[in-house]
């Protein structure tokens, strides 16, 4: 068996090792590959940048734990931007597994900026029945969430005295790994004119292109890449940048494998 013949049937463990290095090293070293900001992400940033201090953003954690590697960097970047601009945040979840994550993220990033729960941000908790919950918020937040996540009645929370329904909310962001943002668009946007932005996994992104074309959504943040773009815009490097480095290098390693595989194939055929 010639060299190329052997290369065609290379020990898989070499491929595994290269893949591990391709993902692991960028995570450890923070290379900082260039990121180009796309229009959709730029629109979200510009809109939030244009809000006045004290305006309210509603963030809904509509995802499971399986997709956390993509969800958390997006959430981090948005929360950092909002807190740094002194905006007020209201959090909630339409999926049970999203509740704990949303609560944790709110408190963690809130603490980074010294924001106070109840005054600058509040986490409402989880509601099942997507449609009913989204429609209900258009009427009265208090009716959907009588108490917040800490079991404090909404009427006793300072921030919630001025936030009653979508009319008092400047932007709704749904962080999701499925088509929940479609419900936000169909109900909160179409019915109540709420401005909706989906922050979704890269795989789900194509679902929302038609909504961008039709102008129903303002922009979109998709996956690790979207989060990395956002980190670049707010000039705070976070884990998405690193993750995206890992992602890009892993892709190049993959393409390298495909090219190598083909070289080995053609050379071994020539050798015959």
């Amino acid at each position, binding site marked *: 068996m010639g060299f190329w013949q052997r290369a065609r049937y290379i020990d*898989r463990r070499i491929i595994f090792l290269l893949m591990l290095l391709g993902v692991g090293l960028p995570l450890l070293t923070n290379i900082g590959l260039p990121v180009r900001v796309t229009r959709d992400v730029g629109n979200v940033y510009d809109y939030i940048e244009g809000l006045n201090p004290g305006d309210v953003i509603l963030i809904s954690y509509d995802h499971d734990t399986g997709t956390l590697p993509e969800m958390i960097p997006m959430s981090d970047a948005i929360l950092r931007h909002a807190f740094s601009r002194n905006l007020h945040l209201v959090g909630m979840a339409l999926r049970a597994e999203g509740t704990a994550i949303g609560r944790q993220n709110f408190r963690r990033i809130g603490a980074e900026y010294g924001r106070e729960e109840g005054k600058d941000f509040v986490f409402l908790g989880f509601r099942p029945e997507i449609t009913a919950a989204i429609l209900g918020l*258009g*009427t*009265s937040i208090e009716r959907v969430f009588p108490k917040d996540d800490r079991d404090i009645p909404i*009427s006793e929370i300072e921030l919630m*005295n001025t936030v009653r*329904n979508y*009319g008092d909310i400047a932007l709704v962001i749904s962080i999701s790994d499925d088509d929940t943002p479609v419900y936000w668009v169909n109900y909160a946007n*179409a*019915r*109540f*004119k709420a401005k909706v932005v989906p922050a979704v996994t890269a795989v789900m992104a194509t679902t929302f292109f038609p909504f961008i074309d039709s102008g129903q959504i303002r922009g979109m943040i998709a996956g690790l890449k979207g989060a990395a773009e956002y980190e670049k815009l707010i000039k705070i490097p976070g884990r998405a940048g690193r993750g995206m480095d890992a992602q890009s290098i892993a892709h190049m390693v993959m393409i390298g494998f495909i090219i190598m595989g083909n070289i080995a194939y053609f050379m071994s055929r020539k050798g015959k």
Partner: protein
Amino acid sequence: MRSLLWFSVITLFLSPLVFGFGLRVADYPNDDGTRLVISWEKLPPPELEAADPDSYILERSTGSDGDFAPAAVISKLDPTLTTTDQDLNKDEKYYYRLSCTSEGIVWVSEPAGPYTPVENWYNTGRTNVLIGILLTGAMVGWFISQGKKGRSQYLRPIAGLLALDEAIGRATEMGKPILYSSGRGSMNRPASIASMNILGSVAEKVASYGTPLIFPNNDPVVTAVAQEVAREGYTKAGHADKYNSDNIYFVTDSQFGYAAAVDGIMMRERPATNLFFGTFEAESLILAETGNSIGAIQIAGTDSSIQMAFFIVACDYVLIGEELFAASGYLSGDPQVVGTLKGSDYLKIVIAILLVIGALLGLLNQTWFVNLFVTA
């Protein structure tokens, strides 16, 4: 909160002014009699043009002069000008009115009613589905009856099925077992039924050679069915004694627990042939790559379009899409089953013709034809 309180105090002292305002109520089509559709004219009404409030309250009552209670809040910007009131009772009469309290004015529209939601017994939005099924049923039924008369049909070769005998033979020669998996599909999925049909043929072939057939399951109902099917296959081949129900067993329903277990089995039992037929999810490539590393011949077939891609890359032969469902006709040669294949072939011609006609009529802007395929 405080402002709401303020309004309700005013309401107490002002008796509401009633205005004529066109509120239209209609039955919600094709439902179980629990919904009404309420639509209105453009807001605001003339009387409120100056105040132009953001939202109105839709109120519902079960008597024309009864107590109206809020049913929904309506935004003045709602472009649909309709809302659906749910969870109603089909034996009750309902009245609706729109109300608004704004800057001291209490505005109430004339009540509209009475309306009663109607319980429907046939979903008219699904007539096209019914026609499609009747057409399919008629076509398939006709070819089954042709099959009963024993008329045989030509079937084009499918590489993956031709390779099945070779793959079983190889395992026998090498004295190694065959590993079978039907993936993650529950037994009520047609793909699992198709998989069981293939399993029956495989068991029959394997029985005479005495090659072990290992089939770890992801679903306990599949285990029960698979044991029956395999036992029958062995019996048909005249080797009921060689059937070992311990080789077909439930492992776990955890997707990746199952993948880990099957990987482990492959490494330890070293099957010469892996057969993956059924509904697969992300575990497909975990199984197929591990199978590849031990040098097994692999044949796969699934109804999941995404997992077909992974099988194509990692397996030797793949039954693409419908080929999985056709397999039992090929393997058993039963003329009735083959007949159903012929029936579905004719349906493909019908679909192709509909596509061409639809495209032509579409170019001529005949929306009605395209709408024939819209389902509720």
